[in-house]
């Protein structure tokens, strides 16, 4: 079985690629960063000896994604599982970002994700079940001032994924939404976690455990995975408190975290 992974050259995408390779799956990976994608592919082949096909492209470009699909069909790659990992966020308040930045969050997190999903379903082997994982976020569970666009885009993915899962269930398609807290993916993420202090560490999940459980849960047909006890408690708490109050609390927290982060960045 081949697994299609977007955003596979770094962070969570690369972690999923490694996990699937460890389980012996073939990989069909894409990312906008062609060099990074190639390096990760080389490392994965050396470690696990599985076939790794790469196709670097910008998934916000419709014809590029057609190329991605066509390439798979030409090479006879049958996809059994799709990981929608590619995503985007910019730090900073709504008015501090250009509109273009904000629009690109929606283009990548929502539009491109739906595009890939729509087209990749054509690559499925009808005789076998198909598995889709959407990477939403812990941020999807609350309205978050200063991360408003990002959090709302992840909320879209969460609701969409639950609805799509129900819709496609009769056709043997299983859809899982993953809502992780902080993950130790890149240097700047490690810094961001440190900047958030106690809550940063408390909501951070071990990435190696998250990817392993995500794959297992998806294969078992689960629809939602929120890693970590603290995160599940936060989710439960969020249901009891009105959104406007949560927003006020989170606003305070992110103001502090961003100041902290900026001061680390300037050191």
């Amino acid at each position: 079985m081949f697994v299609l992974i977007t955003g596979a050259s770094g962070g969570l995408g690369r972690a999923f690629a490694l996990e699937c390779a460890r389980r012996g799956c073939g990989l069909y990976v894409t990312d906008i960063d062609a060099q990074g994608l190639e390096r990760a592919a080389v490392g994965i082949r050396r470690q696990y000896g599985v076939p790794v096909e790469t196709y670097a492209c910008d998934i916000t470009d419709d014809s590029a994604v057609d190329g991605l699909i066509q390439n798979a069909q030409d090479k006879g790659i049958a996809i059994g599982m799709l990981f929608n990992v590619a995503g985007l966020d910019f730090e900073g308040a709504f008015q501090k970002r250009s509109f273009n930045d904000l629009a690109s969050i929606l283009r990548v997190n929502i539009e491109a994700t739906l595009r890939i999903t729509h087209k990749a379903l054509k690559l499925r082997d009808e005789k076998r079940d198909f598995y889709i994982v959407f990477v939403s976020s812990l941020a999807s569970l609350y309205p978050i001032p200063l991360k408003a666009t990002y959090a709302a885009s992840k909320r879209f993915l969460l609701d969409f994924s639950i609805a799509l899962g129900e819709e496609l269930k009769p056709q043997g398609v299983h859809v899982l939404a993953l809502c992780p807290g902080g993950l130790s993916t890149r240097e700047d993420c490690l810094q961001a976690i440190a900047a958030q202090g106690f809550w940063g560490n408390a909501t951070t999940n071990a990435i190696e455990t998250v990817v392993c459980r995500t794959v297992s849960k998806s294969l078992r047909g689960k629809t939602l995975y929120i890693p970590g006890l603290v995160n599940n408690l936060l989710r439960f708490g969020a249901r009891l408190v009105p959104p406007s109050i949560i927003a006020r609390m989170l606003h305070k927290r992110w103001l502090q975290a961003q100041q902290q982060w900026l001061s680390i960045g300037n050191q």
Partner: protein
Amino acid sequence: MKTIVITGATSGIGYAVCRAFAQMRWAVLGVGRSEATCGAAERKLREEFPGADIRFFPCELSKQTEIIRLGETLTKTLRDDFGGRLDALVNNAGCVRNYYTTTEDGYETVFAVNHLAAFLLTEQLLPALVEAGGRVLVTSSQSHLGTKVRWGDVMLTRRYRPLFAYKQSKLCNLLFAQEFNRRFAQSGVRCYGIDPGLVNTGIGEKNTSGVVKLFWRFHKRRGVSADTSAKTYAHVITSDDADSLYYGQRGPQRFSRQVNGENAKRLWALSDRLCGTSF
């Protein structure tokens, strides 16, 4: 003029080793992580030792493409200015991570930086080392004792524990030294593992947080200064009869029984595969 390459040279033990050899008038080629830290270390050393030949090369040792580029730059520098001879290579750069992280090559960061980088850089510089009958030193640690390589999962993708990752990488350093000597001792190059002792450096505070950082902040105070530790490196590199594998402040030291031929060969084969080399 004798030449020495030192990684992790901008602070801690590496910087102290730079000072020791600049004082002896060796040409010091330091490797650090960024332009900024390299520039600062270079300036400070040149101020302290005017007239000494000190050069720094920035390289992100977690990336294999960068290590290969560094190997080419160093080889060219050695060829152009020092007759292609390298008298000592000190693989000292090391790191600790709070969490499981991977490099751009998809390898666990601590394993990649502490072991694989040393393996690949030594492979790159072997011809220059052979030319001079040089010595290779690897910064290992007493923490390699009481641990084993987790062969089924070297990258520690299951239950990642920061301290275990560090200990395993330090055991790998000694395994590397052992197998290196089996292969290359007859060509006049020898490799040693060094136990720097507990040294008061910042290793446990870079890119870590919470408990690890706090622990290290207090623990390191009991350590010796990096300059004391640098003496061990200088002794092993300059002495005529260093024929043990593992040296500490008081001379040759006992090492783990895990450091044996079988494990060493196995790690070597794995490292070759992960670096795409035939070292």
